[in-house]
C-alpha cells in the first residue's frame, strides 16, 4: 500500500519564515518522537534502564542520545528521540520506567518545534514572554514552561549567547504562534 504522507502544521508558513532576516530566523523543526515521562524518583537504576540521566534541576534540559530530556516538573519530563518512531520510543521508555512506578505516553504530535536563531531572537521573545531570557539566566541547558503571546510553550536555551532558542508549542496553536512571531519580527525586518 502506498505510503501515507505526513503534513506539517506550519507548511504554509515556510515561505514567510524564509523571508525573515538572519537576525530573527525562524524555522519549523521536523517531526520528532516525544514521550511524556512521569516518575517519582530519579536514581542510578532508572538512569541505567533509560540510558539517560533525567535532569533533576528545575527548568533545565540535557542531551539524551539523539534527542533531549527536558525537565517539566518534579516528576515529569519530555524525552525526545530522532532515531526512533514514536511507537518505538514509547515502548522502550515505558518498559524502562514501569518497574519504577513510572509511566510514559507518546506525545509526539502534541507539540511541534520552532527554532529561533539570530541576534534579535531575545528581542522578539521579550515582546511576549514574561520570564527573564538574558543569557546570564537562560543559557544553553535552560528550559522554561511559559507563555509566548497567548500560547503555552516550552522554551529551550540552545546557546550561551541568547541567540538560539527552541520553542515547543501545542500543534493547534502553531499557526497562531507563527503569525505572532512574524508580527513580532516585523520591527526587525527593516534593519539594514
Amino acid at each position: 500500500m502506498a505510503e501515507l504522507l505526513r503534513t506539517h502544521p506550519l507548511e504554509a508558513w515556510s515561505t514567510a519564515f524564509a523571508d525573515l532576516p538572519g537576525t530573527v530566523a525562524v524555522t519549523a523543526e521536523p517531526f520528532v518522537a516525544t514521550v511524556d515521562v512521569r516518575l517519582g524518583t530519579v536514581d542510578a537504576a532508572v538512569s541505567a534502564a533509560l540510558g539517560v540521566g533525567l535532569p533533576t534541576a528545575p527548568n533545565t534540559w540535557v542531551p539524551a542520545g539523539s534527542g533531549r530530556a527536558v525537565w517539566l516538573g518534579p516528576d515529569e519530563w519530555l524525552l525526545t528521540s530522532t532515531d526512533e518512531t514514536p511507537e518505538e520510543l514509547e515502548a522502550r521508555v515505558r518498559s524502562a520506567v514501569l518497574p519504577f512506578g513510572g509511566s510514559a505516553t507518546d506525545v509526539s504530535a502534541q507539540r511541534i518545534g520552532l527554532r529561533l536563531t539570530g541576534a534579535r531572537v531575545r528581542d522578539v521573545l521579550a515582546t511576549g514572554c514574561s520570564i527573564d531570557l538574558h543569557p546570564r539566566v537562560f543559557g544553553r541547558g535552560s528550559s522554561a514552561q511559559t507563555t509566548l503571546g497567548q500560547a503555552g510553550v516550552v522554551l529551550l536555551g540552545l546557546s550561551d549567547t541568547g541567540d538560539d532558542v527552541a520553542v515547543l508549542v501545542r500543534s493547534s496553536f502553531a499557526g497562531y504562534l507563527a503569525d505572532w512571531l512574524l508580527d513580532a519580527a516585523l520591527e526587525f525586518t527593516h534593519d539594514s
Partner: protein
Amino acid sequence: MTGPFRISEGGRIDRATTLQFTFDGQPYTGHPGDTLASALLAAGRHQVATSIKLGRPRGIAAAWAEDPSGLVQIEEPFPEPMLLATTVELSDGLVAHGVPGQGRLADVPDSARYDAVHHHVDVLVVGAGPAGLAAALTAARSGARVALVDEQSEAGGSLLSGSDVLDGAPALEWVASAVAELAGHPEVLHLQRTTAFGSYDDGFVLALERRTDHLGAAAPRHLSRQRVWRFRASSVVVATGAHERPVVFADNDRPGIMLAGAARTFLHRYGVLPGREAVVATTNDSAYDAALDLHRAGVRVQAVVDARPEGSPRRREECEAAGIPVLPMSVVTGTQGVDRVTHALVAPFADGQVGAAAAIACDLLLVSGGWNPAVHLFSQARGRLRYDEALGAFLPGEQLDGLSVAGSAAGVFDLAGCLADGRRAARAAVAARGIPAADDDRLPVAPEPVVPAAPLVLWRVPDTSAAGGSTQFVDLQRDATVADIARAVGAGLRSIEHVKRYTTIGTAHDQGKTSGILTSGITAELLGTPVRDTGTTTFRPPYTPVAFAALAGRDRGRLFDPERVTALHDWHVAAGAVFEDVGQWKRPRHYPRPGEDMAAAVLRECAAVRTGVGILDGSTLGKIDVQGPDAAVLLDRLYTNLMSSLAVGSVRYGVMCGVDGMVIDDGTVLRLAEDRFLVLTTTGGAAKVLDWMEEWGQTEWPDLRVHCTSVTEQWATFPVVGPRSRDVVGAVFPDVDVSAAAFPFMTWRDTTLAGVPVRLARISFSGELAFEVSVNPWYAVAVWERLLDAGRPYGITPYGTETMHVLRAEKGYPIIGQDTDGTVTPHDLGLAWAVSATKADFVGKRSFARAHNAHPLRKQLVGLLPVDRDTLLPEGSQIVEFAADGQLPPPPVPMLGHVTSSYRSAELGRPFALALVKGGRARIGGTVHVPVNGTLVPVEVTGAVLVDPEGARRDG
C-alpha cells in the same frame, strides 16, 4: 523665527528646521524640540480651551503632565482625544484644537502598531534628572543590569529648565556625557519619552514609551507607535522629581497664569518668553529664579509678591540689584482680564488677614506655593507617606523593600544633594543584589548649596469678597473651587476620599497633580484639623493617561485570541466550511454547497448520515491518557459508574460529577490495558477534566499510583458515521474484521495503515453505526483522504458540528454545558443507569442521598415537539402551562423550565427540541406552551430520545 515670543538663541530646539502646524484652524510654526504648548506660547497664544462646566477661557498653566487645563484634541496625523498641549511633541503637519474637557475618539480604526516588551533588570531608575542620572551611572558602573526611563524627550530633568553648573561647566554638558557613558554599558537600557505609570509588588513597573509620535506622519509603519514596557526589577529607584503647586486665589484660572517653574522651562528649554510683563507670586525662594531668569531674558518683572513675613534677604538683594521690586508680606488676591490676565490684584497679607488690593498690570502671572515631591510610584507600591510641616508636602514615610526614592521626590531640593542621593540609592540597590560597587563612581561637583529661607505653607488666599471662593479654582479641569470644598465639608464630609468624590477634584486627566495636596490643605483648614490627619487620596496607576490601544498592544485582529485549529483545517477551508468557535478551536459548523444556507446544509448533512455515511473532524475532543496500577481506582472514584470492570478492548460511557452531584462532564473511556485508560472528554472540558483529575490525585489521593497526561493533540479523530460506515472503514482497513460480531459496539481495535498505527472505536454520538478512526495527526490529512476516497461510492458527506448536534439531540444525548447548567444531576438527564449503586464511593455520591435529589419536581431533560410541526423554538425559551380554566395563570406566570437545544430534524421531518422541565418525565404525552415572538406555541412533551429509541441502528 517662529513667533514673536521666541528668543533668538538658547534652548533645546532646532531653529534651523521649521515645522508647520494648525491649531484651532490657524496656521502656526514651531521647531523640532517644541511641544505644542511651547510653540503656541512662542506665537503669543496662551488660551487653549474653555472649561468644561463654566466655559471660562483656559490656557497653559504648567510645562508638562501636571498642567490641569491645556487639553487638546489631535486631528492629524491621527485623531486622539484629550492630550495635554504641554506633552504633545510638535511634528510637521500636526492638526489640533482645544477641547472643553471632552475629546472625540477616532471613528476609523487605528492602524498604528502598539506592542509590549518584558524587561528584567537589577536596577530600574525612573527619572533622568540629576538624581536619576547619578543613580543610573552608579548602578551601570557596577556592571548591574540597569534600565533608566524618563518621560521627557531628552535626559536632564530639572537641569533642562535652568542654568545650573556642574564641574564648572553648564550642567547639560554633564548630562550629555552621562548619557554617552550609559550608552557604552551593554547592560544598560536607556529610554526617553517613556513614562513609568504603574508601580506594583515585587519590582513590577509598567511604563509607556512614545516611540514615533514625535515623528508625526513620517513615523515608520513597521515600528510600534507606543510600547508598554513591563519591567521586573530587583530594585527600583524612583527619582521622579517634584511638581510645583500653585496658591489658590480668586480668578486664578485665566490664561497667562502659570507655575513659576514652568516659565523657566519655557524660557530655558524652548527659548520662549511666556509674556512681556510678569508678576511673580510666591511663598518660597524658588520662584525668584524664575523672576531673575525672565528679567535677564528681557521680561519686565513688575513685582515679586512674597507672602512670607520674613521673606528672603538674599533673594531680595538679588532682585533689587536687578531692579525688580519685591513686595514682602503680600499676596495676589485676584486677577483681571478676559481671555488673558491683564492685572494681578496685590494686597498686604499678615496674620492670615488680607488688606486692600491694588492692581498691577501684567500679561503673565507666575505662581509658586512650594513643591510636592512626585511620590506617585512610591505610593502606588503601598508606601506610606508622612506630612512635612515645614515643606507643606507629603514625603515617603517609610522604607520599602526593593523600592527607594531619591532626589526631589524624597524632598531633597538642592543639586548636590540630589546627585548624592541618587548615588546612595543606587549603591544600596546594587549591594542588595550582591554586586560589588564600582571602584570609580565619581559624580560631578555641584556648587555649594545655599540654604533657602523657610517657605510659607499657604494653600489659598482668603477670599473676603462676595464670591466666597466660588472663583478660587482648585481643580481647573473640573471647574472645582474652594467653595465646592466648603460645600463638601458643610455637608458633613470629613474623609479626603469623600471630599474628592463630592467635588470631583483630582478625577481629571491629571489626577490631581496640582490640586490633590491643595485639597488636603484646604480641607484641613476648613475642618480645623492638621493636614497630616487629613492625608491624601490614594495614588493609583496610571500616573498619566494610557490609551487602551497601547494596553491592547498586538492582541488585536487575528492575534486577539489564539485560533486553535486541527490538522485538517486547511482541508476544511478548501471545502468551504463555515466555522464555529468552540472555546479557542475553529470547528467546521457545516459545509454549505452553492446556494445553501445553514438550515439547508444541515438538513442535507443529517440525511446523508442517517441514510448513507458522513464523516466528522472530531479531533478537538479532549483526550487524557491515564496510566498506572491504580488507574482504574482513580476513574472509579471520579466517574459515577464503574470503570474498573471494563474489559481491555472495550469502551464505556461515563459521567463525571462535582462534589455537589451535578454533572460537570461526560465522555467515553477506552481501556487500553490493565493499567491504562484513554479518557475522552468534551471539547470544552478537556483542560478542566485534566485539572480535576490532577487536583484529586495530588491533594486527596496522593497514594494512588496513577499518572494523567493530556493527549488531546496526539490523536486526530474522525467519526465515520451512518449505515454505510462499515463499508467505508472496512475498505480502508482490510485487516480489521468490521462485522458486528467481530467488532461489537463499544469496543476498540488497533490496526495499521501503511505501517502507521490507527485506532478504531465503535462509539456513536448519533445512534447510527459508527467507527471513530484515530491516528497521529501527522497523518491526519492522508487518512482523512483515504476515508473520503473509500466513501465516495456511498456519497460520503463531511458534516460539521451543527449536524453533529442535531443527530445527538435526536437521540437525546445531552451536551454538558448546553443542556445542563451546573444544577443538573445524572438522574435529571435520565442517566440514572450510569450511576453506580454498588460502588462504595465516588465524587458526588453523597449528594445523591439528599431528599431533594429525588424530588419529583426537579427539572428533567425531555423532548419537545411543536404541535404545528413547523415552529423552531428559540433556545433559551421559557416553558409555561395553562391553568385548569385554559387561561394563563396571573403574572408572574410560573416558569416550568427552558428550551436547551432546538433544531430542524430531517429524520423527523419537523423541528424538535430538548428542554429542562420541572417534573418533565411525568409530563410526557402532555402539552405545554412556549412563548415565541408573542405567541404561545403548543408543544408536546416527549421522551428525550426521538429517533430510534430501541437503538436498532447502532449496529447498522
